[in-house]
């Protein structure tokens, strides 16, 4: 099963945020979506998860055309995303945040309670379960965001800058967690990330955007040796 964008263009006013981009994500693979600020990465994830209708082009989920689906229709069909601003329910406990998502899979409150503990344990958050979500550290907050996404039983997991604001050690730890999730849950994972070390270690494939267009794609090694990539991305960063 695949999540597939083909020929997607998004404009805001006269500005082209994303221009004729095609991307495929299969179950069980990890793809990195990279590019400088303003390259259109988040806009593309918005399109892939139903938050933004493309001007042209189409999205397919498991071969089914997603035209006109709302964001929660995407989520119901297994396309689950996280947000840069995690957007936990700060008035709920950590466990309740996860339970809310679990209820959508059709389990009752008691079963959701047990299952939430399992998922939090899996992400090494068991001790945080009964804390208020507003009391979490930045890194824990992000992991709870991932726990809540996992509770939705994703086939495709879209992570928008999951390592933003984490230190090197925390980012490495997060990389292991994401790889583990793929191994254990088999979902296709798309990671927007600036941290090149994390992305090259974690991802089988990279997709590079610059000013809304696809600049390069392929394995990390292929992308790194791509002259256009070196010029635009590393050149701009240096």
């Amino acid at each position, binding site marked *: 099963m695949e999540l597939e964008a083909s020929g997607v263009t998004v404009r805001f006013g006269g500005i082209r945020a994303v221009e004729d981009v095609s991307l495929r994500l299969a179950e069980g693979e990890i793809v990195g979506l990279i590019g400088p600020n303003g390259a259109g990465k988040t806009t593309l994830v918005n399109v892939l998860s139903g938050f933004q209708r493309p001007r042209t082009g189409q999205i397919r989920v498991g071969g089914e055309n997603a035209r006109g689906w709302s964001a929660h229709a995407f989520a119901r069909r297994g396309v689950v995303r996280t947000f840069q601003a995690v957007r936990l*329910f*700060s*008035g*709920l406990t950590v466990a309740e945040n996860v*339970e*809310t*998502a679990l*209820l959508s899979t059709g389990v009752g*409150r008691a079963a959701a309670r047990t299952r939430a503990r399992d998922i939090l344990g899996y992400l090494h958050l068991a001790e945080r379960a009964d804390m208020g979500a507003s009391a979490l550290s930045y890194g824990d907050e992000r992991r709870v965001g991932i726990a809540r996404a996992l509770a939705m039983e994703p086939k495709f997991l879209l992570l928008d800058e999951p390592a933003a604001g984490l230190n090197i050690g925390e980012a490495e730890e997060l990389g292991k967690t994401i790889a583990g999730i793929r191994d254990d849950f088999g979902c296709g994972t798309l990671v927007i990330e600036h941290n090149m070390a994390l992305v090259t270690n974690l991802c089988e494939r990279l997709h590079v955007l610059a000013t809304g267009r696809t600049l390069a794609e392929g394995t990390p090694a292929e992308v790194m040796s791509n002259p256009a990539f070196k010029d635009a991305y590393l050149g701009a960063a240096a």
Partner: protein
Amino acid sequence: MGSAFIPIMIDAFSVGGLYALTALGIGLIFSVMRLANFAHAEFVTVPAYALFVLSDHPVVVSISAAVLVAVVLALVTERAAFRPLRGIDPATMLIASFAVSMFIQRLLVFAFDSRIKPVNPLAVLDGSVALFGAQVNLLKLTTVITCLVLLIALTVFLKYTRFGLEMRAAAEDFTMSRLLGVRANRVIATAFVLSALLAAVVAVLFSAQTGFVHPRFGLQIVIIAFVATVIGGLGNLLGAAVGGFLVGVVSTLLQALLPPDLRPFREAFVFLLVILVLLFRPQGLFPARGLKERI
């Protein structure tokens, strides 16, 4: 003082409790859909008329009918009037709720005329009991106990049931809760049903206290309850309950403690306090989370 104190406090909390339940009914709907539902007045008035219509029947029948009527009315107004407006500007929804309120009020005038009708749904509670050596009105004591029981029941519902959890999530971030699979229609319908249940209880207790019902019966209590929700912090249920008790207790105590010459101006003192609270805490005593941003 000792024997006068207990009846005054029971009096104060029986008034405050009714305001608190009404403020909670308003707050439940506001928190999930940002609708300041002025038609809550009719959610109180209509079941009170049901009590009047069925006053020859056993209490159990008339009260059950009142509750049922309130729930049906709430679900119908939600479906017919408020669902098509969902997500629209809150000011527009407020005006729409005025329209619904006026419409139902006029229907009641049409059906029953605008004169007051006698009701006495809780005649069994006439009389008084001794409590800590003081004579306490049985109806007022029942009102206080009922309000406390309902507050506890509502807390348990919100904390421990799946609908309660979904309501709390939706109240904080409606968009995010929908992404996580919370069904918008169901969570809003739940809020309307709970709101109607609270309104029906208020209708029974308040009509038992006043002894009559008229087309603006619910309005008098709902206006004060709106003030209470604003004091407590719009969108915060704890705030609504505390605000309701506060307004009720303060106005009852003013009535009891003000010099007789000033008692007719009691409301002026209550609203002076309201203004003071809002001057110093414009967001209310307990500002709601997640009210700022709704994207």
